[in-house]
């Protein structure tokens, strides 16, 4: 069994079976406590909505990056299943962020076409399963750091907590992908969000 396969042999089937329910529950939890503020966004709310919309753009890209990987024919089972599960997580993030933005009176940023994402991510350079995993790992690490990095900018502490929760999901993804690539763990403590 290859290193990638060993990592992918997780109890994911049972997790996948439950993931739809979990994601829906997550979406509800993220927006709980945020009453609709559609009638006149204040400056602080508008600033928070801007951050959430950037996050939503990032999630749109992540979903499409995994789609590019899944359609590439380069991912073999069971790695493919894990990629699909991670894509599902990002769809959950997308739904939660879009719902929160709408509740706050904002307009969720729209998804671009798959071709646009593929071109921006240079999908034509992906030649192997490792290439796809490396791209995904790079994006997940970037997302972890992005979410941690915007936490101090939120005016609403509850939204800062949402960013922290999203960051932990991305960290989980990065850890699995990093392991699948056979890369070492970070040498030092506190490697994220510095």
């Amino acid at each position, binding site marked *: 069994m290859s290193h990638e396969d060993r990592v992918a042999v997780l109890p994911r089937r049972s997790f996948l079976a439950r993931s739809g329910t979990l994601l829906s529950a997550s979406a509800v939890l993220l927006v709980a406590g945020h009453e609709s503020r559609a009638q006149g966004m204040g400056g602080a709310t508008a600033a928070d909505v801007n951050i959430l919309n*950037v996050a939503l753009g990032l999630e749109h890209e992540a979903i499409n990056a995994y789609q590019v990987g899944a359609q590439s024919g380069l991912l073999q089972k069971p790695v493919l299943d894990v990629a699909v599960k991670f894509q599902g997580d990002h769809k959950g993030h997308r739904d939660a962020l879009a719902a929160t933005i709408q509740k706050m009176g904002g307009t969720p940023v729209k998804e671009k076409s798959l071709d646009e994402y593929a071109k921006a991510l240079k999908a034509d350079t992906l030649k192997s399963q490792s290439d796809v995993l490396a791209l995904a790992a*790079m*994006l997940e*690490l970037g*997302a972890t*750091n992005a979410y941690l990095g*915007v936490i101090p*900018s939120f005016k609403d502490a509850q939204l800062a907590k949402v960013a922290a929760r999203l960051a932990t999901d991305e960290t989980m993804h990065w850890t699995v992908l990093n392991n699948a690539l056979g890369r070492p763990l970070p040498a030092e403590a506190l490697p994220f969000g*510095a």
Partner: protein
Amino acid sequence: MLERCIAGLALAVLALHASAAGDALRGRALYESRCIACHSIDADRVGPGHRGVVGRKAGAVASYDYSPALKSSRTVWTATTLDRWLADPEKTIPGQKMNYAVPDAQDREDIIAWLASNPIAKPAP
């Protein structure tokens, strides 16, 4: 014409200064762990592409949908203005949408050096 040449020369000097000050290799590693979620050198993604950013006016990539704050800003990105921006985007250009800061001065210097090492390619003579 002369003004353009002088302006171009000034920007080239600024870019050179930026690349000389920091460690571009370390800056690349930082870029690929901190900035890569939203940015690439050669493509607009969640954020605008960065090739040629040193010396460019803020909000000037035609293919990217900037915030009104960036579009209307008169800022020109130099090592100095980029350092200020990365230290505190909202304080530098209120109403921006990046909201991601790089608190450490050496990290900023190295990231700027990496950005400066990716100028717009000159057409072949």
